[in-house]
């Protein structure tokens, strides 16, 4: 064969649907690809024989939809909302960095370090890519906080805590230790503080952000709230815009 062999991803598509994959012609005439497919089929057999039986119950249980609040759960918040209706009309609309859930609030302040000292950023502010950022959250209830950022290219960055670390419990006004640099390119990037009662898998959060807050510039700018998070999860967000990148800067190294 003289044509380049398909990637593993294309061979996965071939295994799912040989005809529609567009790879059937190549595979038929390529010994190397048939060997790869043989290995992939053996791994699938291993999955079906050992992995699937050992894990399917846990997968189904962990992915099951949470039970709804029931009528009482719906009625009480509605009643509370009605009672609070006048108050809501009289209360100024909160800034984008302050989003309330059931009377509980979380705010996020972002500070950019500069030679002149730390400066609090406003929503939509233009900042240089390499600027070290620090974060302060203020929460009305103790919860476990993560700070992440999403940009228009589908990139989600863990800003706090460091990747792999458990989200720490915070309460009241807390300056988060350490600083972080955003890794996006030119254009908008959204910083989210997510605070939950129970530890939340960062992968699930990243997927939610990827789905809802990335894709193009406008989606990033509009995604001021992430839906589908567990009940009681507080969130706050701030939009920043990255200025023109200076030649020779490296932003993707840790």
């Amino acid at each position: 064969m003289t044509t380049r062999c398909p990637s593993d991803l294309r061979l996965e598509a071939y295994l799912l649907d040989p005809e529609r994959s567009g790879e059937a012609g190549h595979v038929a005439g390529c010994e190397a690809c048939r060997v790869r497919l043989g290995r992939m089929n053996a791994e699938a057999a291993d999955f079906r024989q050992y992995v699937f039986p050992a894990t399917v119950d846990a997968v189904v249980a962990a992915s099951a939809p949470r039970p709804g609040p029931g009528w009482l759960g719906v009625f009480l918040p509605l009643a509370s909302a009605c009672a609070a209706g006048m108050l809501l009309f009289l209360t100024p609309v909160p800034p984008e960095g302050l989003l309330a859930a059931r009377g509980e609030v979380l705010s996020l302040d972002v500070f950019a370090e500069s030679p002149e000292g730390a400066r609090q950023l406003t929503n939509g502010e233009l900042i240089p890519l390499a600027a070290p950022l620090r974060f302060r959250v203020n929460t009305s209830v103790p919860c476990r906080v993560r700070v992440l950022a999403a940009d228009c290219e589908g990139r989600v960055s863990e800003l706090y805590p460091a990747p792999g670390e458990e989200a720490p419990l915070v309460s009241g006004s807390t300056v988060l230790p350490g600083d972080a640099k955003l890794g996006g390119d030119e254009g908008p990037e959204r910083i989210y503080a997510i605070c939950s009662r129970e530890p939340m898998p960062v992968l699930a959060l990243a997927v939610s952000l990827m789905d809802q807050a990335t894709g193009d510039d406008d989606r990033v700018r509009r995604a001021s709230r992430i839906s589908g998070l567990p009940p009681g999860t507080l969130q706050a967000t701030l939009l920043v815009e990255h200025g023109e990148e200076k030649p020779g800067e490296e932003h993707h190294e840790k």
Partner: protein
Amino acid sequence: MDHREAANRLYREFGPAVYRRCLRLLRDREAAQDATQEVFVTLVRNMTRLEERGDALPWIYRVSTNHCLNVLRNRGRRGEEALAVDLEVDERSAAEVLPDRRLAHELLDRFDASTQAVVVGVLVDGMERDEVAAALGISRRTVSRRLERFLSSSRRLTGKEPS
């Protein structure tokens, strides 16, 4: 179809693809089994995307890759095997880019998750840049830019130039 039945069917159908991806990156059967389970919980929670079969594979690839790279980074932090040790560089068309792939082995864990996913896609999986872009949900230009940054930084950091 209730949740159990639907999740069971999707896990049976797409589980092998996730498991193979995790085996490829983690190169450890038990770790791949754990990772497959964790990835699939996330996938099944977004079940409707799995049911749109046209989009499912690139998404599975993206979620699995990101998760397994994260597992590898955490291993490195705990002083276990470093990320580079676990990655098996794709040997197809190796003659053209082998020096860069060696740099990839040595230096990948110095870079952020998104750049790692690009580098793994192009240099380890041997994917075309268009394919990596589609799988990761980013533009081809971004793939090229991140790869070039990675390679130039790698060369600078090691003092090596590709032959």
